[in-house]
Structures are given as structure tokens and as C-alpha cells.
């Protein structure tokens, strides 16, 4: 159990990332592709937080516990993940705006049809 437990979160992160990549590559709709990219981003959150986890520890937030009374998890990766989520959300918004612009200019959101239009 314990050896599996030591790598399981990382493997789940890798699996989620690869699944998102598969969806991204085989997508027939650009809006769906943006959703798949969001799934890829989820993998990075899981990986970062898994690196910072400590068994039996709690969050390094001392509003309701005394400092030093319990072991705490790594706050640095949590701050990184927070930035990651913000950037992920803005990337999603910007890409969706681009998709809308493509739909307007070319009349389709299918990447294959778009390639044919290009000639």
C-alpha cells in the first residue's frame, strides 16, 4: 500500500495530463479543445500540490491553530498553484475569445475545416 501511495498522486497527474493532450490532439471543435487544455492545466495543480504534501500535516494557516502546534504542509507550492490557477483561467478566457473571433471570420470551429480553408 505505502509504495503505491508514494507515487499514486504523481501518476494520476501524469495520466490526467496525457488524457488532456489526447483530447487536444483529436478534438474536432475548438471550444472542446479549450476544455481539454483546462484538463491539462488540472494535472499541473495536482502535481504541484502532491509535491508539497506531508503526511499527517495541516495547512500553514495560523488563524485557528497556534504556530508550531502541528506539522504543516509546504506553502511555497501552494502559492505557485494559486498563480497557476489564475493564469489558467485567463488563458482559457483569452483562447475562448480567439475561438469566437475564428468562428466569426471563418464560419467554422472545426480545426480540419479551418485547414482546408487555408488551402
Amino acid at each position, binding site marked *: 500500500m505505502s509504495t503505491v501511495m*508514494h507515487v499514486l498522486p504523481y501518476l494520476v497527474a501524469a495520466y490526467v495530463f496525457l488524457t488532456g493532450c489526447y483530447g487536444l490532439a483529436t478534438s474536432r471543435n475548438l471550444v472542446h479543445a479549450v476544455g481539454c487544455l483546462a484538463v491539462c492545466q488540472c494535472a499541473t495543480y495536482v502535481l504541484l500540490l502532491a509535491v508539497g504534501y506531508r503526511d499527517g500535516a495541516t495547512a*500553514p*494557516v495560523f488563524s485557528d491553530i497556534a504556530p508550531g502546534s502541528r506539522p504543516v504542509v509546504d*506553502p511555497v507550492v501552494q502559492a505557485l498553484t494559486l498563480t497557476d490557477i489564475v493564469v489558467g483561467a485567463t488563458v482559457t478566457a483569452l483562447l475562448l475569445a480567439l475561438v469566437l*473571433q475564428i468562428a466569426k471570420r471563418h464560419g467554422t470551429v472545426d480545426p480540419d475545416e479551418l485547414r482546408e480553408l487555408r488551402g
Partner: protein
Amino acid sequence: MNRLRLWLLAVGGAGLAALLVAACLDLPGFGGRHHPYGDRAVQASLARHTANTISSVNFDQRAYDTLGEMSILFAAVLGCVVLLRQARDEHRAPPEPAEVARPVRRYALLVLPVALVTGLYVVAHGQLSPGGGFQGGVVAATALHLLYLGADYGALERVRPLGVYETSDAVAVCAYLVLGLASVLAGTAFLANTLLPYGTFNTLSSGGAVPLLNAAVGMEVASAVVVLLAHFLDQAVEIEEEHGS
């Protein structure tokens, strides 16, 4: 062509999967005790009387990175505004008000202030309990859009003078920069948290400049999300293409 692409994807994916699994097996085990950066970050945060260590990392120890994050958000919103502007061959057609069931309308109008206050609470307690400028800003901005969901788009447009939100977005980014420059003028590094007294641990005014930077980020995020959603809503609801063009 399509078969070739799938084969290429399969080969690349298998290679990437093998590399990722090899990397995972070599990573320090999940739940280990060795977190040198984390321990030092907690000590630094406690030395500056900030109860929420994550806020301390974001707005004190790595405040410069947060400035980068803010500028990404600002630039992304700017990009969306440019991409989603009303083109020359489009016109605006005010939508007909939707028929919303009365309980839903009442719920939206009742929860709207509650959600706004919750957003402000999350921003204000960012340096104490879980939360902070980003989370609270998104909640407050989402709360405003209950007006669209529960009433109709016209009601939202009346309480949302877009220019004000665009200005406050820019003002918030400037405030963050000015706070950083203030510490340079005081003779320390950019965004160094040495200017203000650290205050009493676990009170609203503790942590030196952390609450101020937190509030600036909260304001920026809230107005950025409002501007962003406004342009998407305009596109989805109001702007129509001219026929026969």
C-alpha cells in the same frame, strides 16, 4: 493523413508517458517530511506576523511574481477586449427580457448582496484565514452576474458602467506598482515589506504591506473579471452580424 496523425500521436504519447512515469518514480515520495523551502517560508511568515503563510509567500516573499501574474491578467483582459470588440459589420440588438420564475428572481436578488459581502470578507481576511484578493475578487465579480442569471441583461447593464470597472482595473495595478515603488523610495528593495509596522499577530492590520497588496489584487481581479464577462456577454447576447454581408 488522419491515420498518420493518430500514429504520430500514439508514438509521442507513449514516449511522453514512459518519461513521465520514470520521472514520477524518482520524485521524492508523496507525503515525505523533507520540505526545506516550506519550513523557511513558514518561519519568515511568522517573523512578519502574517497568519496565512500562503498570503505571505504571495504578497511578501514572492510579491514580484504576483506583479507578473497581475500583468498577465491585465494583458489577457486587454486582449479579450480587443478581440471581442464590436466590428464594423455588426450591430447591437437589445435582447428581449427573459421570463424568469419568481422564486429564482428573488433568490438571485437575495443572494447577490450576500455573495458580494462574502467576496469582500474573503479579500479582507486574506492574510489571516484561507482566501485572499484573487478568490474574493472572483466571487464578488461572479455575484454581480447573478443579475443576468436571475433577472435579465438590461438589469446587469444598468449597475455595470463598464468604464468605471476598466478604470479601477488600471488603478489597482498602478496601486500595486506604487506600493512597490514606495519601498524603493524608502531605501529598500522593490516590493520589500519593510515600510509598515507588522502589527499584532492574527489581526486584520497585521503583516505590514500584505493587506494593502491583497486589496489591490482583489480590486484588480474583481474589475478584470467583470470587464471580461461583459465582453463575452455582449457577444453572446447583444451583438449580431448584419445579414447579407
